[in-house]
């Protein structure tokens, strides 16, 4: 932990610290996805919906009304949380693979709608976030270290929430739902309610990441905010690291994100596709040979009780 706090002081290379920020950010998105996808086994492929809603909420508040992204990030979380209720009500009518497809559709519909909102949300051209230089009150920092610490705080929040849920009655209910929904229902778990609640929490956290990301890259458009790649990566890092485990998404991101960044810098952006080929090959290998994720290869942490860290195959 201390190492991660001191890292920006040691690592001064902008490329390296950019990778670190992306690792923290996508680990956080993975942690948010994992709450629902990992513990309750509700495999969403549409978390970009909430990433985008968070990003657009804070940007519209900032650019149109001059409201600080610190307020916007929470507002975005609330918008995403509220949006997840009707979206969940529809998508949870399907199970398994068709739930995943329905969530893809919701993220796509939101992207298409934001492409249409030309007056209100800048349409396909998107907009840049006004650069104020050193303005911590507007979530803008002069160097990359500020963003690094913010991403670190977000990830820490995500991990603490996961830990609290894991240790509470909710965690056990989620695992019960993930193992067998019908059986969980039969022993008295209110399945629709618990799925709704965890979806709200997961959506809220994912939206925070959306605001952070647009503040970090100073740009927003529907293709970035609702990018299918965000949905894919959220699931991918969790599965590769260890689905339904506290540290799984962090491990997965720590392996995948630097690999992809290095590949991109070696091969240049001209060779499109290589990054996703590598991702897909890793994903396939993990599913075929180690479906519980790579976290099991590391020695178990002393403070992690066996029952909780043991991955569950539903």
């Amino acid at each position, binding site marked *: 932990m201390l190492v991660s706090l001191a890292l920006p002081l040691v690592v001064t290379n902008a490329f390296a610290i950019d990778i670190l920020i992306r690792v923290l950010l996508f680990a956080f998105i993975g942690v948010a996805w994992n709450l629902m996808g990992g513990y309750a*086994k509700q*495999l969403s*492929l549409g978390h970009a919906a909430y990433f985008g809603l968070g990003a657009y909420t804070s940007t519209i508040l900032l650019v149109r009304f001059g409201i600080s992204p610190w307020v916007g990030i929470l507002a975005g979380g609330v918008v995403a949380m509220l949006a997840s209720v009707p979206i969940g009500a*529809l*998508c949870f*009518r*399907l*199970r*398994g*693979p*068709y739930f*995943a*497809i*329905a969530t*893809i*559709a*919701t993220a*796509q*519909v939101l992207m*298409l*709608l934001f*492409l249409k909102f030309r007056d209100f949300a800048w349409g396909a051209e998107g907009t840049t976030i006004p650069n104020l230089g050193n303005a911590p009150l507007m979530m803008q920092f002069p160097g990359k270290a500020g963003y690094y610490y913010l991403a670190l705080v977000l990830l820490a929040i995500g991990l603490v929430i996961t830990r609290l849920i894991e240790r509470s009655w909710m965690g056990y209910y989620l695992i019960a739902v993930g193992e067998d929904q019908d059986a969980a229902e039969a022993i008295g778990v209110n399945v629709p309610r618990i799925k709704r609640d965890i979806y709200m929490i997961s959506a809220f956290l994912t939206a925070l990441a959306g605001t952070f990301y647009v503040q970090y890259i100073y740009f927003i458009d529907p293709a970035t905010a609702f990018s299918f790649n965000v949905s*894919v990566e959220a*699931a991918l890092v969790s*599965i590769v690291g260890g*689905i339904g485990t506290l540290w799984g998404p962090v491990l997965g991101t720590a392996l995948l994100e630097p690999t992809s960044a290095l590949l991109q810098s070696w091969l240049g952006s001209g*060779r*499109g*596709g*290589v990054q*996703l*080929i590598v*991702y*897909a*090959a890793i*994903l*396939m290998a993990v*599913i*075929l040979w180690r*479906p519980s994720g790579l976290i099991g290869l590391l020695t178990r942490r002393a403070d992690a009780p066996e029952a909780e860290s043991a991955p569950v*195959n*539903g």
Partner: protein
Amino acid sequence: MAAIIAQAVVNGLLIGGIYALVSVGVTLIFGVVKIVNFAQGEFVMIGMYISYFLATFLGIDPLVALAVSMPTLFIIGLLLQRFLIRRVLGLGDMPQIFLTFALSLLLMNGALLVFSANYRTVQTAYSESAVHVGPLYVSVAKLIAFVVAMALSAALSFFLRVTDLGKAMRAAAQNRDVAMLMGINPDRVFGVAVGLSLALAGAAGSLLMPFYPVYPTVGQVFVLMAFVAVVLGTLGNVKGALIAGLMMGVAESLGIQFIGADSGLLVVFAMLLLTLAVRPSGLFGGSTR
């Protein structure tokens, strides 16, 4: 006005024939093997590239190329079932979803690497020609694609109803465990189901080639349509997928005509969400999955 609507409906039905072919493939695998093949669109893409290269380098008509693309994809399907799908059966949703999903990413981006993102087209003698039926304009290439697609679907349902293997497949779709107790060899039945499903995707690819460009992500267009059609037509129901596939084509075409050129997909997704809200078990089903 009536002529515009009629024209949009005809256009929609013609392309809907292709959606139906892809949808029938998705629903066949889902019905028999109980997994969703996220890579189905990529097999349409492979069928298109097979036809494209046969047409470009050997001058073979894309429709004749059907005789190559279908058997090739049937064999790929047998291998897919034998070496990948079989290993995740009974392992739960996560491996089943993400195995074919990873395969889709792999094939799509592999194609991007090998063939580049360029759009490639094949010009045939009939690519641009059309027949006029009263006030309606009907593209010959699309009409041929539609007729062949319907013929293949009819052949499949004949196969499922009449042959022993087809009956075994329907039995496995209804109740896998009982079917196995009755002495049906699941490996063989599953392999043929996946093979046939991919052969249909390959056929869709060949049929598209005279009037549709091929590029690495082309499959996404068709697979999204197919997924929606399969939900609308009730999961695992071949006839339902066929009718819903045609409906998706018409809905998309009307959306493009009356809402805007970029609205086809929006209409399709709206239909999915509407289906889920009103009739989650689809048009032909009693209860959800």
